[in-house]
């Protein structure tokens, strides 16, 4: 009933046969989250997330790519309802459609977040050492995080935790360990176990493997994939490493300077990136077995306090035209709505090919 009233403003077409008919687990509409600073009468506004709309279907891994200060961390903080001043949500909504309930954030009355956190929505953070309390054994962290949300009596709780650890190929003896006794990879595995023990429907993972070595990274990613497939949860996976996205994610969204600039199925994006920034990200990836010289991109990411006019990528863009300097390109659907791209040059090229 919601779609009927809101659909015209939303750049997605109505669901077709090709698309999932069930409601998406997460629906972000026109979200704007700004850092508002008011110092000595000087108002500053940093538009970290500007007009982002996306949806994450059930049982899907959605990858979010972008470099530092592209707003990806602000976006996931906003989705996780973990905003603190000076970060304010200026507009837009986030809606979760869980199995037995729907929750809308920022749409009026703030719902009871304690009821959805961990049981429906959980979070894997980058620094595993700062998530686990260094002076308490791992088992206490499990009690602190999960016991209240699971709502089971203590013996049953430990039964579930042990079974869950076993499923993730972790020995139950890790429960007795202190965080410093475990290696970085092991700690990260424990935090993943911690985030998934209540079988949440939606998991946010913020650069969970960035600090790990390649071999450990691959094992942890394999574990993430396995546990996601088993629970059938949706996963929002954030990293700047395009090679990880290529191997893990079903869908991929690319952010640049606070805006979503391209979105689509991972395989399609890697095969045929449409936005010049995405094209650069993919073509500049070094590969083993290929020593072709690669071009760097001139310039640097813009400051979000003072973004360029029009398309925020235009000062660095090889295809920049006059209109790019004046108007921000909208994120328009292509390929029957499976793909969205915000670029005038890409749209101009596509119009000749019978795209919607």
């Amino acid at each position, binding site marked *: 009933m919601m779609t009927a009233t809101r659909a015209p403003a939303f750049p997605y077409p109505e669901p077709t046969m090709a698309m999932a008919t069930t409601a998406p687990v997460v629906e972000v509409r026109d979200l704007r989250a700004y850092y508002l600073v008011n110092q000595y009468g000087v108002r500053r506004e940093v538009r970290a997330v500007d007009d982002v709309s996306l949806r994450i279907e059930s049982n899907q891994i959605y990858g979010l790519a972008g*470099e530092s200060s592209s707003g990806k961390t602000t976006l996931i903080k906003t989705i996780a309802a973990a905003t603190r001043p000076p970060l304010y949500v200026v507009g837009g909504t986030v809606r979760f459609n869980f199995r037995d309930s729907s929750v809308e954030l920022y749409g009026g009355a703030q719902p009871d977040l304690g009821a959805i956190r961990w049981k429906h929505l959980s979070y894997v953070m980058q620094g595993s050492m700062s998530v686990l309390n260094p002076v308490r054994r791992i088992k206490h962290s499990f009690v602190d995080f999960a016991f209240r949300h699971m709502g089971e009596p203590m013996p049953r709780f430990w039964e579930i935790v042990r079974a869950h650890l076993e499923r993730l190929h972790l020995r139950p003896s890790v429960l007795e360990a202190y965080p410093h006794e475990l290696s970085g990879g092991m700690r990260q595995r424990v935090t993943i176990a911690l985030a998934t023990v209540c079988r949440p429907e939606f998991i946010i993972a913020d650069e969970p493997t960035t600090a790990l070595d390649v071999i450990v990274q691959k094992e942890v990613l*394999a574990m993430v994939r396995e546990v996601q497939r088993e629970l059938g949860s949706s996963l929002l996976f954030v990293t700047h490493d395009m090679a990880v996205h290529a191997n893990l994610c079903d869908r991929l969204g690319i952010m640049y300077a606070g805006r979503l600039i391209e979105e689509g199925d991972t395989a399609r994006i*890697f095969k045929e990136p449409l936005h010049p920034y995405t094209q650069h*990200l993919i073509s500049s990836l070094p590969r*083993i077995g290929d020593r072709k010289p*690669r071009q760097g991109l001139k310039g640097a990411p813009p400051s979000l306090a003072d973004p360029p006019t029009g398309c925020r990528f235009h000062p660095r863009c090889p295809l920049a035209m006059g209109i790019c300097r004046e108007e921000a390109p909208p994120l328009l659907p292509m390929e029957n709505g499976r793909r969205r791209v915000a670029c005038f040059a890409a749209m101009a090229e596509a119009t000749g090919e019978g795209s919607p």
Partner: protein
Amino acid sequence: MSTALLEVDAVGKTYGMGGLFGRDRVRAVDGVSFTLDSGRPEIFAIIGESGSGKTTLARMILNSVPPSDGQIRFRGRDLATVRRRRDRLAFMKEVQPIFQNPFEAFNPLKRVDRYLFITARRFLGTRQRAAAEEAADSALRQVGLSLAEVKGRFPHELSGGQLQRVAVARALISRPSLIVADEPVSMVDASLRVAIVNLFTTLRDDLGVSIIYITHDLATAYYISDRIIIMQNGRVVESGAARQVLDAPRHPYSIQLKNAVLSPDAAGSDAALRSDRMADRANVADAMTS
């Protein structure tokens, strides 16, 4: 035959850990040897995971940590004899470091150009402000920046990529013959990483600087380096021409490393992750029996 620029000769480092009683000994680097030629500048990559001893090795080459055994010779002179201030300055003029995180390498409360001027004064002996500015400007131009862009700026006003290029420029001021770069691109954003990596090849080809490139990223090592060594637990397990080693690694650990690199070409399939640990073990077992 041209002379050796740097000879690392059976170098080892043992750290003592623990307190007064029951000291644990950790062998961080064990019997590492290689030679860089002075007539043929090259990019020499040292690859290994954390704890493999690559940073300890770099510190020994920079003469900031003495080796426990073995010898490191720079242009024939044992680094253990480089102790007096004048000798150390002469050595530092020739061998310059670049660190992993440019935001930590520069003091956030001081202007970045200050580092360039100090380096010019110390190693080039420039006394006049104008001469120091000229040296800084010419070094910055080699990395695609100019003094006008950097002058008077604080580290937070520059992007990570710009700051890392300033770090490279600073290293270039003394016109070194060897640069030791410890994970120089791992903290730099994806869209700027290639530019820095390309810069290293320019330094090698145009300025004749040899570069020791320390990394855990096999893909960039393959892209720029001429020779590589792969380290595990302080030992070199495989070494040789970069392409040869990475195209067909022989040692089980190198094979495991290469298999763990996620290729962007497999986009959309999770085959690489599904194959899991079992497949890696099988590959290693194959390599060991053959």
